[in-house]
């Protein structure tokens, strides 16, 4: 219900929903961040940004503004 990667708490995970292709750069998809995949939040940087996530086997850090554009269903 309106959840995004940015609304996860540390240790929580969710399933990525379809996202708008205009806002998500191709390279994020290429790193494995795809619709239908499980994403979990590993760590948040001390100043609440960026977010350290694990998705589809890759460990990535992305900024909150982008994480906020990726809708998920919480698990």
């Amino acid at each position, binding site marked *: 219900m309106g959840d995004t990667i940015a609304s996860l708490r540390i240790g929580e995970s969710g399933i990525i929903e379809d996202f708008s292709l205009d806002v998500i750069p*191709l390279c994020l998809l290429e790193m494995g961040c795809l619709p239908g995949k499980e994403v979990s939040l590993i760590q948040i940087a001390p100043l609440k940004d960026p977010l350290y996530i694990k998705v589809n086997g890759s460990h990535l850090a992305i*900024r909150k503004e982008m994480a906020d554009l990726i809708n998920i269903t919480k698990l």
Partner: protein
Amino acid sequence: MKNNAVLNVALVGNPNTGKTSLFNQLTGLKQKVGNYPGITVDKKHGKCKISDELTAEIVDLPGTYSINPQTLDETIVLETLLNTNNESYPDAVIVVAEVENLKRNLLLFSQIKDLQIPTILAINMSDQMERKGIDIDIAALKTALKTEIVLISSRKNKGIDILKNELANYKNWNTETLANISTKIDAKYFKELETTFLENSLYKSWLLITQQEYCLFLTEEQNNKINAFKTDIEKIKKYQHKETIFRYQRINEILKTTYKIDKSKATDLRSKLDSVLTHKIWGYVIFAVVLLLIFQSIFEWASFPMDLIDSVFANLSELAKTNLPEGVFTNLIAEGIIPGIGGVLIFIPQIAILFLFISLLEETGYMSRVVFLMDKIMRKFGMSGKSIIPLISGTACAIPAIMASRNISNWKERLITILVVPFTTCSARLPVYAILIALIIPSKRVFGIFNLQGLTLMALYLLGFTAAICSAILLNNILKVKSKSFFIIEMPNYKVPSIKNVFYEVVEKTKAFILGAGKIILALSIVLWFLASNGTSAYKNAEKYVPTLEENSNLDTEALQKKIASYKLENSYIGTMGKFIEPVIEPLGYDWKIGIALISSFAAREVFVGALATIYSVESEGEDVGTIKERMGAEINTKTGLKRFNFATGMSLLLFYAFAMQCIGTLAIVKRETKSWKWPILQLSGMGALAYIAAFIAYNILK
């Protein structure tokens, strides 16, 4: 070994897969670093003997997650694999993958495979499979991927010979495509694409369409043809996304039956380390300690070899003077070339130590954690967490630092990083600082443990960083550059650094610096010597003119010689130039001799010390050469009768060198990276103005 066939092999792979380790194993010390034509991306290549008849010329392409480039370095991968006229166009490609994240590595593999160049998959870090509970059905995977596969462990030198044997057989490799993009996305569209560009494989045509802007090798005719086909940009973008999703689907299908991982064996070393190293307090404390350790080591470890180099070259100069027959040629060697070479070599210890640490931080995976920790803070200054790497590298040399800013994908953040990096205290400033501090700051202990000279140096470092941060804030507020921002970094697994990789990295970076900057420094030293030992008619008549002056009539021969020498310097070409700018620099506390050093260090700061050394050694002709410091310390201000390098002048010079943009190499690289003269000119004038004002204020308060 004549008529030995040479095979062009390209190494491709994700970052952090041990691709460079493999390259080091294959080529060893036979590797070289060159440049790709037209751009300053390091091209690492080297020879590797495959068999008695076959040698491979191996190119280590920049690490990338996809053939679709995000950075300048990554465009090299695209260019090398698409441009058949490229001198490194490969006969065969080795895709290096890592065993743990095989899925993502296979995305790149699938793209390259579809180009239908003979390709082999080398799965690295295979020695860790058992420990990590990974089981791969290699035979089935080979069939599914339509490729040869070799399990290797580049760090332990395992599987390398098998890989070489396979390479000898490259002509028999299967070159079928892996993911048939056409049928799954839009059959009609791709059919049309295929028939329009019959000369290429379908995937290559698709890449030319989607990555046209990076394919600089295309002819006008080819570009027109592509433009004619490229009508619906939105559609192309959509299909690119679909293509990636489709590739992952294929890879998932294949791995489902061939790749098994026993999750219970997974260790949580990564999460344990992460929770400490990215902790909100400990994370920063550890980073601060690491930085302190780096800088401390640079001074502690480098001072001995630097002093050694300094005195060896001073002795060599003297030796040359006393043992070679007198004449212009001897002077050139003793006063031009030897100090020039010494001025270059003196940087080696510090540069090598700094690169040693940077390469250790990157090898272990810690650097990504620093980027993660610092991103939000750096963004407040208009930069990115990734700016940390250029800012730290900048303490060695701004040139590689500016090149390291390439992986910042946001243009504004990258531009600001490029513009402020030259404020960080690069190693070229160090000899200037070192000699000035030694002259004006007493070497005494404060608070029991700190050396006052060391503290001054530390303060100058902080000053450089502060100037960088403040100007970044300023630029962030005035620059109106729109750019799409995205920030994605991989957080790699922690690794024990490979000594071999670190060693090669340090050697390569140091060599690149010496050869690059060294040429400028050496050339300038020689030019400087020439300008100091030639001059107008007053210079040529010095021997006759000076003894006729009344004030000199009572002098003995030795004192007279001194007078002649300094009269000569004053009237040499460089002396004339120094005199010319004297009125401008007098308010800063400098005389025309320091003016000479300023002019000559305009192109490269470190020339300052060498220039003063040259000036004073030309002046003290025939005498003991002594070390540069001794000569500078003995210099007297003719107006005040006090030491020339007193506290006020010294501080003024320190501040001038802290802020001024005196490096042609950096200006050139900024021009190249920003593709405009606007930014280097801004740096030159802005930093110059700041330097002048700061030096002026300091001198007038302290004098």
